[in-house]
């Protein structure tokens, strides 16, 4: 059941004995990508297109007292400009997901009257070359009247705090109390109460290597825009943009081929897309927008920064966890572009992987003068799971227990699956204790003490840490009603079409917008298994076009769901096509019943007389081009569309109770670190990651997701931080100061897996790809472990660069977290 590899062996693409699913089929996407033949958004050009450059705010918070574009408009090569006032005249504010007070804010595509973070777009300038657009943007004169900036969420509700949005009456955007079980009883039963004053999950994101971009064309005759873009969730962009632009959604055609990484960070580019649409119409030409790295860091999709205050944990002497209370304070940045959904998404994994039943979490989200937050790989669950993992390790530390034992004692057991959490989510399957055993074995845990002594003899401090994490996939959008009961969203869906073309080609279209997850390949594997053909016979259209691909309301690539929603839709559509082929062949063969037929060798034949064979090419030709004489009631088109709808109910909004996600993949990571106590510098010297995502269609792709998410977590745990100074300047606006892991930073990695198929999904699969947060949890635990006996600082922040480690070693009281234990 366990495999240990650092890189899977190549598997020859020959028809497998059993099924294509489960094989490491090399990806269909690779051939174009390794030749530089991918089509990314910035590769697309149009005759006479204008390049847009945004004038951005240098201030974190300021009134705009005047804007003068006259000089810029006179500059060489300039086609025109767009200001916030024009946007406000031409569009309505974006729809707000939040109930009041956050629901009252007025969000437009460009700043109007005020800027609220450094890097906010104020004016757009279009010119005939990229360089001239930027030249002209320097001629735009914007007068600002600076205001005090709010950069610390903890000050947001102070009486003297600067207020970002007057319409909201303060900086509170959304708040809600979640409580399940009987907290009083749990704390009465507890032997100890562990109190943790403050924990902080820092601000970062996945920094996909390709930044955002678009090429927007306007067709004046039919008042329709074609938006070639790398937005990863066009369905969401459309419902944000259509009402704002006062147009029907079919007037917005989204086109994508290859996307250079997304990780959730490319969901909320709708403000920039609106600007491009307005400019395309105003200037009567195609508008090209390339976001540069510094623009991205300044303004796009930071991950949610979150504080946890006044945490109290009820625990028995033997380490049995009964429950916890905490106050989560979420820093949304300046705008609610996808928020406050983070205020409920965390609840998909309320108890983490543990059996505690009594939980109270007061969630508050505030606005600050920083870039808006938006989904980032592990969105909102990562913050919460980091919290639960930190709690486990702090409890173990304070009570002198072994973190492995505390985990094993409290993990939800395999025999309890499916497990209903205190808030009504149903964990489908899993065996966390077994995964931990695999992870311990891979890292060589039994030699740990020996290695610790060896490290100490070299003057180094060795630390070991575990990170457990859940990757909840396939959202029930009904959870949004807990944020705002007025919202009419629930359930989820994804769609696929599969057809046989005139010459028998099998053509698949997806509703998704993949960014490297290999959808073309895994979809082909599913189709090939059903139609008994080769993956090479299955053509899955690259990318997405909302005009000619299938498309459903929640279509897109986000929230760990393709293996469930996407592939289930593919499966459904392929089965429809298969049934139609049976029907057609039955008629062609003169009334042969389906049970007498079988698929084989790229066609269909009569079981008992295999020479009666109808190749797919013939099927396609008959239906499409040679259909005279077919029975009138045949009802076969060989072009099948299937919408997969996961089995969800509308959650109980009053109790905040219900199943919020369909599947729960899991990851457990272990890490060994060595700290140089003189400098705080540390290295990851060994790393293991164990994954369970149910049935794996393409294990190599799954493992690639595990590895990639792990690398992102390592970066986040050690270096990656969107740090602001007190004036609201971003201190890490590029890869020079925002250090992402490089080749030399990577530790040796061992990977393992177990497979507990999901009982709830058509293929036994679970969505995956977002479980990498485990690396952050594990490194925090390892740092704390290394500091044991060397000041015993409590690791309270999710990002621990060298200077913080050194500070914790040298002044553990000041630099570490504050924790106390009291008898209950």
């Amino acid at each position: 059941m366990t495999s240990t590899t650092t890189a899977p062996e190549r598997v020859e693409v020959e028809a497998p004995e059993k099924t294509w699913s489960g094989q490491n089929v090399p990806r269909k996407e690779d051939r174009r990508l390794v030749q530089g033949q991918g089509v990314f958004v910035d590769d697309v050009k149009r005759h006479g297109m204008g390049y847009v450059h945004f004038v951005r705010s240098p201030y974190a918070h300021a009134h705009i007292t005047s804007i003068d574009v006259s000089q810029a408009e006179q500059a060489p090569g300039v086609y025109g400009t767009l200001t916030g006032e024009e946007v406000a005249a031409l569009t309505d504010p974006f729809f707000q997901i939040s109930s009041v007070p956050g629901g009252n804010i007025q969000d437009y595509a460009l700043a109007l009257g005020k800027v609220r973070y450094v890097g906010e777009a104020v004016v757009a300038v279009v010119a005939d070359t990229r360089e001239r657009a930027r030249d002209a943007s320097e001629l735009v004169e914007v007068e600002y009247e600076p205001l005090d900036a709010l950069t610390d969420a903890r000050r947001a509700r102070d009486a003297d705090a600067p207020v970002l949005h007057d319409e909201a009456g303060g900086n509170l955007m959304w708040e809600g109390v979640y409580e399940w079980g009987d907290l009083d009883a749990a704390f009465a039963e507890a032997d100890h109460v562990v109190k943790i004053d403050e924990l902080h999950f820092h601000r970062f994101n996945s920094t996909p290597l390709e930044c955002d971009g678009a090429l927007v064309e306007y067709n004046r005759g039919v008042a329709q825009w074609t938006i070639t873009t790398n937005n990863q969730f066009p369905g969401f962009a459309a419902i944000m943009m259509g009402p704002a632009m006062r147009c029907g959604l079919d007037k917005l055609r989204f086109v994508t081929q290859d996307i250079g990484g997304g990780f959730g960070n490319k969901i909320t580019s709708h403000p920039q897309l609106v600007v491009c649409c307005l400019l395309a119409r105003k200037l009567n030409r195609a508008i090209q927008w390339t976001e540069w790295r510094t623009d991205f860091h300044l303004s796009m999709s930071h991950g949610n920064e979150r504080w946890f205050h006044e945490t109290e944990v009820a625990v028995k002497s033997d380490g049995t966890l009964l429950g916890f209370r905490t106050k989560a304070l979420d820093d949304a940045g300046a705008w609610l572009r996808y928020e406050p959904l983070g205020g409920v998404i965390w609840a998909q994994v309320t108890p983490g992987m543990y059996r505690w039943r009594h939980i109270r979490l007061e969630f508050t989200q505030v606005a600050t003068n920083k870039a808006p937050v938006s989904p980032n790989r592990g969105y909102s669950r990562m913050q919460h799971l980091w919290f639960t993992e930190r709690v486990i390790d702090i409890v173990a530390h304070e009570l002198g227990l072994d973190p492995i034992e505390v985990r094993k004692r409290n993990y939800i057991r395999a025999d309890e699956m499916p497990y209903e959490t205190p808030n009504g989510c149903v964990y489908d399957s899993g065996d966390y204790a077994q995964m931990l055993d695999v992870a311990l074995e891979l890292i060589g845990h039994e030699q740990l003490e020996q290695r610790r002594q060896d490290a100490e003899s070299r003057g180094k401090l060795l630390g070991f840490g575990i990170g457990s994490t859940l990757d909840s996939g396939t959202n029930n959008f009904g959870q949004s009603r807990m944020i705002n009961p007025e919202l009419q969203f629930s359930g989820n869906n994804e769609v696929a079409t599969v057809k046989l073309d005139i010459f028998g080609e099998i053509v698949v279209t997806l509703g998704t917008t993949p960014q490297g997850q290999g959808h073309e390949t895994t979809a082909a594997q599913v189709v090939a298994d059903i139609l008994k053909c080769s993956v090479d016979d299955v053509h899955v259209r690259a990318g997405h076009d909302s005009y000619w691909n299938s498309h459903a309301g929640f279509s897109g690539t986000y929230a760990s769901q393709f293996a469930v929603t996407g592939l289930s839709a593919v499966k459904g559509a392929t089965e429809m096509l298969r049934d139609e082929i049976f029907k057609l062949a039955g008629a062609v063969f003169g009334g042969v019943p389906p049970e007498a037929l079988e698929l084989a060798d790229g066609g269909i034949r009569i079981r008992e007389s295999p020479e009666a064979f109808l190749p797919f090419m013939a099927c396609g030709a008959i239906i499409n081009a040679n259909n005279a004489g077919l029975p009138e009631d045949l009802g076969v088109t060989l072009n099948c569309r299937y919408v997969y709808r996961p089995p969800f109910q509308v959650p109980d909004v009053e109790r905040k109770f219900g199943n919020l996600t369909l599947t729960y993949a899991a990851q457990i990571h272990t890490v060994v670190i060595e700290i140089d106590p003189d400098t705080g510098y540390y290295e990851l010297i060994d790393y293991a990651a164990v994954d369970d995502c149910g049935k794996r269609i393409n294990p190599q792709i799954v493992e690639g997701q595990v590895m990639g998410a792990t690398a992102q977590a390592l970066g986040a745990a050690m270096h990656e931080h969107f740090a602001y100074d007190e004036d609201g300047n971003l201190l890490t606006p590029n890869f020079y100061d925002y250090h992402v892991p490089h080749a030399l930073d990577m530790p040796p990695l061992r990977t393992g897996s177990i497979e507990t198929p999901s009982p709830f999904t058509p293929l036994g699969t679970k969505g995956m790809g977002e479980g990498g947060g485990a690396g952050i949890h594990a490194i925090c635990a390892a740092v704390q472990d290394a500091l044991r006996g060397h000041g015993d600082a409590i690791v309270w922040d999710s990002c621990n660069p060298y200077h913080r480690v050194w500070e914790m070693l040298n002044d553990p009281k000041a630099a570490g977290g504050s924790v106390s234990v009291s008898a209950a």
Partner: protein
Amino acid sequence: MIVSGDRTFTAPREAVWGVLNDPASMAKTMPGVESFDVHDPTHWTANVKIPLGLGGLRMKVDMEKLEEREPEFAKLAIKGQGVGAMMRMETQFELSDAPDGGTAMHWTADVRIAGPVGSMGQRVLQPIVNQQVQHVLTALDREVKAAASEPA
């Protein structure tokens, strides 16, 4: 970024005060001044080009005197706007008679820099600011000496 320091001048307080409050003398202390306009006794504008080895940094600098108590205290607001940078600075100085008969100056400046130059990182900006401050102080010394040696 708050920078502060103390400096002692051999000149009498009036001479120091005179230099610090004479736009023309001040212009001579600033780095890379290309032009200097006095709008009224409390508002001045300078166009400067801060010299950097890789090419100069041009800025239009507006200064406003916020407060003064002659001859001991003044407070200035300085706003610089360049294409690559925005600078805001509030600076104040206090003059007193030094024990040895010269003039003691205590000064503080709260400097804030934003814009693309800000993105070069604090490791670059702080040394640049420190260095420019040193430049100003050295020039100030020179101006004060010159003023003190001139017949009033």
